């Protein structure tokens, strides 16, 4: 199974991935609603990376009390079943799901051709 991976040494922390994700998934440039967050910042003199994206570990699907999350080649969330309880977010080791308006939003890898990977200017994000 192909998964998203971040090669930190190439990452500029430019957040283009989140802006592009929100464009294709939310219809507006709204990175706060993106299905991944990758940023870096300086802290105590060092460069710190904070990355939040789905690694397809499947923990969310196994733990969803409503059976709303299914993992095959990628994650799908059935919003007719999802009640936004937040269990997926609570259990996720990468803090990846976004809960808003009582629904969970999880990366679906753009169904196998992730736009974040396609547009990453320094190829820091890979799908392999």
């Amino acid at each position: 199974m192909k998964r998203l991976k971040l090669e930190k040494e190439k990452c500029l922390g430019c957040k283009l991935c989140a802006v592009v994700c929100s464009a294709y998934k939310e219809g507006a440039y709204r990175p706060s609603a993106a299905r991944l967050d990758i940023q870096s910042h300086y802290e105590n003199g060092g460069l710190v990376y904070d990355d939040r994206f789905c690694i397809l570990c499947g923990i969310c699907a196994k733990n969803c009390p409503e059976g709303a999350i299914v993992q095959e080649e990628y994650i799908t969330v059935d919003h007719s079943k999802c009640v936004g309880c937040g269990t997926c977010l609570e259990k996720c080791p990468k803090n990846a799901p976004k809960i808003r308006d009582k629904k969970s939003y999880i990366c679906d890898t753009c169904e196998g051709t992730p736009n974040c990977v396609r547009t990453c200017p320094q190829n820091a994000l890979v799908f392999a």
Partner: protein
Amino acid sequence: MFGYTGKVLRINLSAGSCGVEPLRMDWADKYIGSKGLSIRYLYEELAPHTDPLSPENKLLLTTGPLTGTPIPCSGKLAVTSKSPATGTISDASIGGHIGAEIKFAGYDMVIIEGRAQDPSYILIDDDKVSVESADGIWGKGAYETEDLIKAKHGCDHSVLAIGPAGENLSTMACINTDYYRQAGRGGLGAVMGSKNVKAVAVRGTGAVDVPDIKKTTDRIIDILTSDVLVEDNTFVYDVGTTAFLEACNDGGILPSKNFSDTTDKDWVKYNGDVLMTYRQGKRGCGCCGLGCGNFLKFKGGTVEGPEYETISVAGPNAGVDDPESIMKYNEVADDMGLDTISAGDVIVWAMEMTEKGIHDFGIRFGEGEKMCDLLRMMAYREGFGADLADGVKKAAAKYGGSEYTLEVKGLEYPQYEPRGSWGMSLSYAVSDRGACHMRAYAPNVEVFEAAAPPYTAEGKGEMVYQLAEFNAVKFSACICDFWATLDYAILSELLTLVTGKEWTEQDMSDTGRRVINIARAFNQREGFSRKEDTIPKRLVKEALASGPAKGQKIPKEAFDDMLDQYYGVMGWDKNGLMPDELISSLM
């Protein structure tokens, strides 16, 4: 509304109030955003002869319609005010993510006016705006300030911060974000300090809307691939502006020892190849793509940079060839919140004063380690640092040695020696904020591309105008200088895609001219005219002793000729003054 949020956040620190008002779209149509739009606002809102460090001055944080979109190199913000260094208008472009956060918080512009009663910082979290106490933060260096605010409010906030230099009202004080990105020039950090504002922290969760998101995004990504990530631009990623060191040295425009000469045979000791061996990581501003930031770790510390300007002033211009000394200078200047260019020019001038016996500042050429001591003295106004903290022009007025100062209107020279690129002396002279290399970058034409002869006045008025027009509109659309292949066709296409309003290439040209004029109109109202569009004495009197431009100096008649040409191109009179009808057309 497309591109813009249509909203301005106005914070009055004296009254302790804030409010949201509609953006003047009639002005946005004429000035786009960022540089041009903020100057138009200040032309309207600042009474003539406002003291730059008084509560009556205002500090504007202005995005553009492209801010927050995936457009490459759009991660900038214009910080604009009346400059305490020059008394002119002064807009400085700062990178990082603060521009996008302001936009996502819902504002095209933030206007900060008045003065807080006590040391404070401003917290903007979407529509929640507060002025918080800076107890425990005031007095700290710029890096720690950012750390403390992010620790308290979360690292998803972008922070503008000043160092001790801004608090102590040095006219060379800058504003920092992301540790190492600066609104560097013109003392805007002192304006912030004068308002008792240590920092501005912003987080936004909103959106920027465009008419057709798929078409716009697809086209932007196409441009990213076909026009941005191409060989003419990607040196920015590989070595950044350190590449200019070799080009300037080879072209005879790398200043050495306080602009007393050019070229340095030892430049390979501290060039990009050497500096990149210290590299630990890469950084770029919002949606940049190119990533000019090089995070370096060395024995004495860490820094992102140094950029060409800092290398030059802390290296050859100071007679220093130790890369770690240059990196340390950069690290300390940023933390103190001092513009590396202006502070460096003051220090190298002090070195020459000592060498020439005019005044003993206790520092001589080559003494790199002492440069950091002087930075601290200036930031805290200790000893003679108190006099140096207000720039080289005022320092020379007190200590003598004005024939060895390099400044225009009180703003110190950037690191491009005009005797090897005569057009640059005109560019520095007519720049809206004093000696600035970002207004019209003459060496690119005269030296790097060798597309115009460097040692002549002929044609330089038109050449500098063309360069200035392009930069004026580019910075009003809020695009970074490093997108070197950008042209009016792409810029107008992007503005059209994002705003839904038709922008043409002619509009780009007209807007550029209008932006130059509104800045000039502001300065003219403050009393500026030809007499302040000056060339430093050294460039007229002393011929260069070595390098490719050996023997060159700029005759006063040649400089005057260039000024006449430029004024002619702009439709200004012989005194550099604008006719009333031209000013009226800008309103």
